[in-house]
């Protein structure tokens, strides 16, 4: 089975901190994605990457950046955490082409 592993299930950070969320996949997928999930809003795409060192903005990239130095690892960075970034963050990966995603279990981030 494909596995997408997110390094933390729960995180509590202070306003202004720099936050790193890590995601690792083990199926050699080309594409990796970061979504945030909020009640009533569904899943919204923050950033995605289709190759090592390549990244593209999603629908809500403001306040976030990403890094993909190795094919299996995709990191989401909150440069200066704010309370409105309190959310569930989901990482996903897929092969190129129209196939479904494999999601990680999510990281619930609380910014206080």
């Amino acid at each position, binding site marked *: 089975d494909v596995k997408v592993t997110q390094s933390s299930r729960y995180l509590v950070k202070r306003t202004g901190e720099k936050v790193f969320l890590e995601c690792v996949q083990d199926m050699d997928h080309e*594409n990796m994605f970061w979504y945030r999930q909020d009640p009533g809003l*569904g899943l919204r795409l923050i950033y995605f990457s289709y190759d090592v060192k390549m990244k*593209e903005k999603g629908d809500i990239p403001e306040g976030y950046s990403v890094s993909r130095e190795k094919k299996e690892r995709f990191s989401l960075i909150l440069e200066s955490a704010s309370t409105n970034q309190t959310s569930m963050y989901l990482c996903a990966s897929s092969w190129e*082409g129209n196939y479904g995603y494999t999601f990680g*279990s999510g990281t619930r981030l609380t910014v206080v």
Partner: protein
Amino acid sequence: QQQVKQSPQSLIVQKGGISIINCAYENTAFDYFPWYQQFPGKGPALLIAIRPDVSEKKEGRFTISFNKSAKQFSLHIMDSQPGDSATYFCAASIANNFNKFYFGSGTKLNVKP
């Protein structure tokens, strides 16, 4: 602006009943429509998917109905079970677009015993 609109937001169904969740879209370039199921504490998992060249796809108790002219698709869960209680998301994507998906807002299904 949400590209895929999903309803209802929540749904309560008795065991053995039929659960129906609806989604609508505007972008006619969408060509792949999956449904995801998410249990508490877990990430969403692909449940079933359809392409617009067919009007229906069935896998066990789960059926997608697709109406291309109306730009609508729906998930039907037959003989709903308490174990189906979860949040369901519809989604849509465009071919050759880095496999980006646009998700609906989700439906929380509660199947009562």
